[in-house]
């Protein structure tokens, strides 16, 4: 028994001394950079795309079956390609945009291409939750479609959009970890290079913990923001 405790103590000491703090800090920063840059750009594309999907949808304010179906198919195509494949598929494009196909910057174009359609669907879904009666009231007041979008839809769906953001950013985090497979940098890269190729279980374990903490923080912050911004809840 005493032997076991001593041994355990020994193992823990070994783990701590073997930890390369610089590696973890750098790769965490790389991960954060990838996740937030690509989320930001993906949202710049995803919000307008989601809005167009919503307004051209059936019985919406600017129904257009043709446009809706075209966009819907495009979104579905990009969503059905596995990220790891997309990563390789869009390499020429990545090279053209960021002039490299390795490192954290190189992961951003495929992350954006993959996340934007996903975010568009999340946004479309959030807008669907806006009370049709409120949209009708705005129409009755003489609001234009653009005013309905900016002053009704995006305002009324804010809490739901924030919940969607928590889910979308977490998904992007998951994708970004896959980027390690092509030397993309970040925590995923560390997990694959050290944990998988070199079979360093401790490194693998630590990166997983770090990723888990990041997911928890993202989830917590956005849910908190969503709840705080929702005026339907009486605090």
């Amino acid at each position, binding site marked *: 028994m005493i032997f076991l405790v001593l041994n355990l103590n020994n193992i823990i000491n070994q783990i701590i001394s073997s930890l390369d703090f610089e590696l973890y800090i750098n790769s965490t920063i790389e991960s954060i950079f990838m996740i937030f840059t690509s989320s930001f750009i993906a949202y710049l594309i995803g919000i307008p795309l989601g809005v167009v999907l919503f307004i051209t949808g059936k019985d919406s304010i600017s129904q257009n079956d043709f446009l809706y179906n075209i966009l819907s198919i495009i979104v579905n195509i990009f969503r059905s390609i596995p990220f790891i494949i997309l990563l390789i598929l869009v390499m020429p494009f990545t090279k053209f945009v960021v002039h490299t196909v390795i490192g954290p910057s190189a992961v951003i174009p495929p992350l954006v291409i993959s996340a934007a359609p996903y975010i568009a669907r999340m946004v479309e879904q959030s807008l669907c939750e806006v009370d049709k009666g*409120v949209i009708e*009231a705005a129409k*009755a007041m003489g609001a234009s479609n653009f005013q309905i979008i900016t*002053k009704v839809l995006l305002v009324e769906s804010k809490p739901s959009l924030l919940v969607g953001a928590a889910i979308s950013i977490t998904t992007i985090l998951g994708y970004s970890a896959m980027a390690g497979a092509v030397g993309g940098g970040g925590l995923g890269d560390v997990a694959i290079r050290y944990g998988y190729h070199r079979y360093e279980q401790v490194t693998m374990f630590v990166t997983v913990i770090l990723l888990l903490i990041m997911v928890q923080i993202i989830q917590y912050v956005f849910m908190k923001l969503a709840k705080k911004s*929702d*005026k339907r809840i009486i605090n």
Partner: protein
Amino acid sequence: MENNIIEIKNLKKIFFVAENQIVALDDINLQIEKGSIFGIIGLSGAGKSTLVRMMNYLEKPTCGEVLFEGMDLSKLTEKSLRELRKQIGMIFQNFNLLEQVNVIKNVMFPLEISHMKKEDRIERAKYLLKLVGLSDKEKAYPSQLSGGQKQRVAIARALATNPKVILCDEATSALDPKTTSQILELLKKINREMNVTIVIITHQMSVIESICDRVAIIDNSKIAEIGDVKDIFKNPKTEIGKKLIFGNYVENINELNLSSNGKKIRLAFDGTNSNEPIISKMVLSANSNCNILYANAKEIDGNVFGEMIIELPKDEESAEKMKEYLKKSNVTFWDV
């Protein structure tokens, strides 16, 4: 002619659902006089909500015309239609307020759409909130308000752009009776003091009774009856009119049937002879008995309207005498 703010001519609306055609409205003709309170009543599914949406062209008619101050709405471009809608306020059963913004911003919303300056918007919103009695709720969110308060906010919002007409789509249906009468009082006040024409859609006859000047009864997609509220109440001509005005009238008759099998008539009192003891005199004139099975009276605009169901005596001669007396006294009645 020029007194009509809204005029509807030969209007028809067909909805296409999958392969089916559903006629929502057919052969609708009506005029709404400027400054009046016009009621549209019908059972649910009768097409009245569709009808009110034709008046601001939220729904476009399949054929027929909708005229606003003599102007055919089908001739307007999208842009001028939006401008026109600013002259027509609308309130709803579910209030339809923006849930994520506070009360004053809700009232300011139509003004923001019209690009009014911010200071002016605030000033106007404050004035309107005072008018509807909610000055102290400026910063509250809709979720913190009661149904009646929400509807007051909606009314303030509808008035923001100084509309000529306010359309009310079942505006009191989600409210309790006391709140309903307060909201109706407010609408009446707005109608009188600001000379805003009000169109009310409802399934509650009590709403029509308490504030409307004229009423159209919609049944099976068509106008069953249309006229002054007083006339319609005095003498509803259609089955649906009777059903709506005398509420549970039909059920009452069925219940009463169990206990009596004589000949029954229904009397309608229009308030012109409320000082006369009609029934006593009728009984005396025939020198026979009658049985009062049901009676109901309501006051509309200071006149007492009522109805009564009586069972006539079995002997034909006395029954005839009673009927003759009623005819002579100008009381409307018919067999039931």
